[in-house]
């Protein structure tokens, strides 16, 4: 996983609540068996009309946000389906950070596994970042995971929280399967105490 320490980039305001993963990556693009190449389908039904042409009114299509790498949205971002393809699409498109007042649990977990930072800020802060990113051309934020701070160099500064273990994994780009396997002895001991039941074994026999 790509480590995350500090990132500065252009902010694009989505200005929507309850953005679900069906919007982030519509189902017709879930049939691929690779992890890559989802970026071009990000927010597909909002970015493109039925005939595949770019829509005029969706904010990601505005040239001034073409290089955006920080997305800011309202509450409950990433709700709905567990599809990790949503995170792959955001990351593949070039996003490193999503800022929102709250995130759906599975989306937040999936982000963590892919080095996409989810930053929770208060309603007023999100509203202010949204306002500034609309008003100021090329508006940028710096997100520092070591100090847990968001700053725009224009007087806006905010702290955010993240549990220490998740932060540690993100900062170091850790493979958490490797971490779990460090507990091999405990897993084996648990399995010895809780064997696969007789009936479950019958599944293989058909």
């Amino acid at each position, binding site marked *: 996983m790509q480590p995350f320490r500090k990132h500065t980039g252009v902010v694009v305001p989505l200005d*929507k*609540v*309850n953005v*679900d993963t*069906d*919007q982030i990556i*519509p*189902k*017709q693009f*879930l*049939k*691929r*068996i*690779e*992890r890559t190449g989802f970026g071009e389908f990000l927010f597909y*039904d909002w970015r493109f009309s*039925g005939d595949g042409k770019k829509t005029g009114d969706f904010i990601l299509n505005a040239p001034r946000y073409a290089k955006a790498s920080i997305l800011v949205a*309202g*509450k*409950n971002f990433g*709700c*709905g*389906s*567990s*599809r*990790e*393809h949503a*995170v792959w699409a955001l990351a593949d498109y070039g996003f490193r950070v999503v800022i929102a007042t*709250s995130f*759906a*649990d*599975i989306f937040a*977990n*999936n982000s963590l*596994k*892919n080095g996409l930072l989810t930053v929770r800020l208060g309603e007023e802060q999100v509203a202010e970042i949204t306002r500034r990113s609309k008003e100021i051309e090329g508006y940028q934020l710096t997100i520092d995971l070591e100090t847990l701070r968001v700053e725009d160099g224009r007087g806006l500064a905010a702290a955010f929280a993240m*549990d*220490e*273990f998740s932060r540690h994994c993100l900062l170091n780009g850790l493979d*958490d*399967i490797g*971490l*779990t*396997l460090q*507990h091999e002895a*405990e*897993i084996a001991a*648990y*399995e010895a105490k*809780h064997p*696969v*039941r*007789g*009936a*479950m*074994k*019958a*599944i*293989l026999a*058909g």
Partner: protein
Amino acid sequence: MGETGNMSPRTLFEKVWDAHVVAAPEGQSALLYIDLHLVHEVTSPQAFDGLRVSGRTVRQPLRTVATVDHNIPTTPRGLPIADAIAAKQIEALQKNCQEFGVPLFDMDSAEQGIVHVIGPELGITLPGMTIVCGDSHTSTHGAFGSLAFGIGTSEVEHVLATQCLPQKKPKTMQIHISGKLAEGVTAKDLALGIIGRIGTDGATGYVIEYAGDAVRALSMEARMTLCNMSIEAGARAGLIAPDETTFEYVRGRRFAPEGKDWEEAVAYWRTLASDPGARFDRVIEIDAAALAPFVTWGTNPGMVVAVNARVPELKSFAQEADRRAAEQALAYMGLDPGTPIEAIAVDRVFIGSCTNSRIEDLRAAARVAKGQHVNPKVRAMVVPGSQAIKRAAEQEGLHRIFLDAGFEWRESGCSMCLGMNPDILQPGERCASTSNRNFEGRQGRGGRTHLVSPMMAAAAAIAGHFTDIRDWRFQ
């Protein structure tokens, strides 16, 4: 493992959690053992690839069960899959299951079905388990008093490799439902009523336990419907303590324990109720008798009103963001504020999905459809949740009732719930659907989804518009 000793009162969730903690390293998430890992074709190929890249194996193939459901056609099984990319994904699952020794209920299997339908129906899902699947509606299995939750593909790989998952302990919420549901008001309406009240993020960060007289009175099918929709309120999982209804459902199923194993299992399962005095982080009280059949009007399951109500006025939303979301939702749905729900005509009806495709759902819909005919302007389809349900329904003659009434009777799968297969809405088409999500484009780009119960869906198919099932003249 916390099964003995002098402990403070614990909730059902805490008991299942405690029994599965493998390790609790200082400063890290607890490592939870996973009893059962359900796998399907859409969220697993990248996970198996990850195993290959890192030279890992599936640690417990016997605790892993796979099926194909999300993208398969619901046309007769003998036909080839027209969608080459979907076919490739199904082939990838077949290949992966073979390579890693994972049991697969394939396309042509008599046990194939929606992953959340076949687990319980085969007796693979049992009380007190930890169950995960790369699908958010894994919460369905909580109906058995299991801790069951959806995970992403990286976590699928993690469980394949280690049979464990590091997890932050969620908060607990009890939804206490007293009283009795009125005739025509179902578990689906209960779920929609709860989400309408607490919102689609009302339970984010929580595990819900459903309790109270109204929950005890529910069948297992109804409990699965209720727990299935927990994720639509943002919950990590939704559980119901196992009881006689649960044991009766599980007893004798193909992979359920037998003989002495069964007696021991039931004795343990009886201990899984929340202790008197156990503390929840949040408690919500619901009066079942006050609920009506519900219909969603917007683009998330929290945008819902009773069938005899009207599409809300925009000024009724206190928060500016919610008002704007409602305005956008109504524009997408092609509805005006103040429209009576019963005046909304439908083009399509879908009866199916992991929420409402079980035998009891089909019986309820068939009861409405019996002796009637689908409105000529409506195309209606019934998609059983599994091959076993399809066979059972055919034995009972339900398929005859549906076919005679003009419904399509199809093969099992997820179908139009998410429209990954050819079963989709055309732009602008309006659908009464027994599924779980009315998101923009969920059932097809530009499609307009209204979530309802199976009875309400069948009634809409016949009337051509939403209608209050409580006034239905059954034939």
